[in-house]
């Protein structure tokens, strides 16, 4: 009997492509598709769903990781694979915290997605070891510590160091300390250059109005 798959993806072509991938394997059949993650929990309540392929950024900026958390809480037997093309460093941890069973980067091919689906349905939790490495000036994202990345996120989401320090629950001096370390590592001249580079590479996505924090 084929597992029933719900695809949550706002871009038509990506949705159609995932539908194509689901139909490639006899182990799976399509339960439905949605463009907006916020409706996914309701869908799972009224339809037979075994597996959800959940995009992170969906219609109306609704957060797929949040939706994954709601589904896992209400219907723990439904497997959820979070999918994204963005290398935002926080997504892996947030997906784990939400209880998502697995995680897949969209730049992989069809075979790799089918493999992740098979392993997930077999009870495995399949996560990439790390977010893809991103070059930042003279260094790469792998050379930045968690504290440094958290500090840079707070700086990007704040108007000044005081606000960033308040968000982090530390002193301004601490904020400047981490920032200076990152500037030394990357070779960028100032925080503006650094933040622009990070935003361009999608390593940190700034979206304070919606729950991407």
């Amino acid at each position: 009997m084929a597992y029933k798959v719900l695809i949550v993806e706002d871009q038509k072509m990506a949705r159609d492509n995932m539908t194509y991938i689901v139909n490639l394997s006899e182990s799976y059949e399509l339960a439905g598709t949605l463009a907006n993650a916020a409706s996914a929990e309701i869908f799972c309540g009224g339809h037979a769903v075994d597996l959800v392929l959940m995009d992170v950024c969906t219609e109306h900026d609704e957060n797929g990781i949040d939706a994954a958390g709601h589904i896992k809480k209400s219907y723990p037997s439904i497997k959820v694979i979070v999918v994204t093309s963005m290398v935002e460093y926080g997504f892996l941890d947030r997906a784990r915290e939400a209880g998502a069973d697995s995680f897949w980067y969209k730049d992989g091919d069809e075979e790799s997605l089918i493999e992740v689906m098979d392993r997930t349905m077999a009870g495995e939790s399949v996560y990439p070891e790390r977010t893809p490495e991103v070059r930042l000036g003279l260094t790469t994202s792998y050379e930045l510590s968690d504290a440094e990345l958290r500090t840079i996120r707070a700086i990007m989401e704040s108007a000044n160091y005081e606000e960033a320090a308040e968000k982090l629950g530390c002193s301004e001096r601490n904020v400047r300390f981490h920032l200076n370390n990152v500037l030394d590592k990357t070779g960028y001249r100032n925080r503006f250059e650094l933040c622009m580079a990070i935003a361009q590479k999608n390593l940190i996505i700034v979206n304070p109005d919606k729950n991407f924090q």
Partner: protein
Amino acid sequence: MKLSGLRRIDQGNLIKEAFDNLPCGICYFNSKGIPVLCNKTMSRIYEAVSGRGLQHISDLESLYKEFHDKENVYSVQYTRDICIVDLEDSSWKIVRRQVEDGRNETFHEFAAYDITELERRTQELREVNEKLANSADEIRQLSENIMWATREEEILSLKMKVHDRMGRSLLIARKTLEKDEDIEQADSAIREWERSIRLLSRASDDEDDMDKDEDLAELMKACEGLIDIRMTGEMPKDKEKSYLIICAMRQCITNAIRYANAKELYVQLYETEDDVCVNITNDGKPPEEEVQEGGGLSSIRSSVIKAGGTMEIMSEPRFMLSLRIPVGEEYGI
């Protein structure tokens, strides 16, 4: 005149000269408000503010009460004991206090400190902070633009993969047909090619965000088999307002299923001259006690307030959520 008298006069002049040349302004008034000691700097400051000489304590005290609209004074800001005077070429902070001499006589002291450089640097910092705040906005805007660009790159990458698939399936089909091999394999390759064409042709469809009808249709689709939605009235034309209503419906559906075991949700939409009004209720079990707003309903309330509207929740005789959202300029366009 005796030499000692001359020396006292000289010393007095020296002290006066030094007093006048202090970089700050200073002035003392006795208990009757008469100035007993005032240096030239303070006199100059007061003259610049008022256009006349300093004669009584009330002259300076008036700076702590009134706004002076003089040609050569840009602003006077005051608190209880501090007053800031901005002149054309300088800024002064005037602090007042009471002092006693060694004989228990009380004097009122007014001291004016030159804060010109401090004000200039504070203004520079304000401008830098404003630029940084704009930079923060720029970074946010850039991040939104980058997200859009990433999604476009994702679509392009998909199209390239689909093209590759098409190419492979065409090659397989051609090879199979040329060598008169397994026709089924050729059929499979051609079907693959057709699927790819369909995928690419759908990709060239308008990729714009869903419209309000699609948003509602998707919610209805999600609810199939779970709860029926009965709507009267029409959704507002404004996409943001209609999505806000859909979010409220979605939250009510979740709560109606979870807490009331409802099978039907009723949504009544109507307009007044100023507002779009929505009432949402269900056929399930009424609440046993006053409904407490959880995260979902609170989030709806925040969004409604942000839109300039109001939200009310009734628990008796049955649950009802009522929204009023101002029509605004977008509606009806």
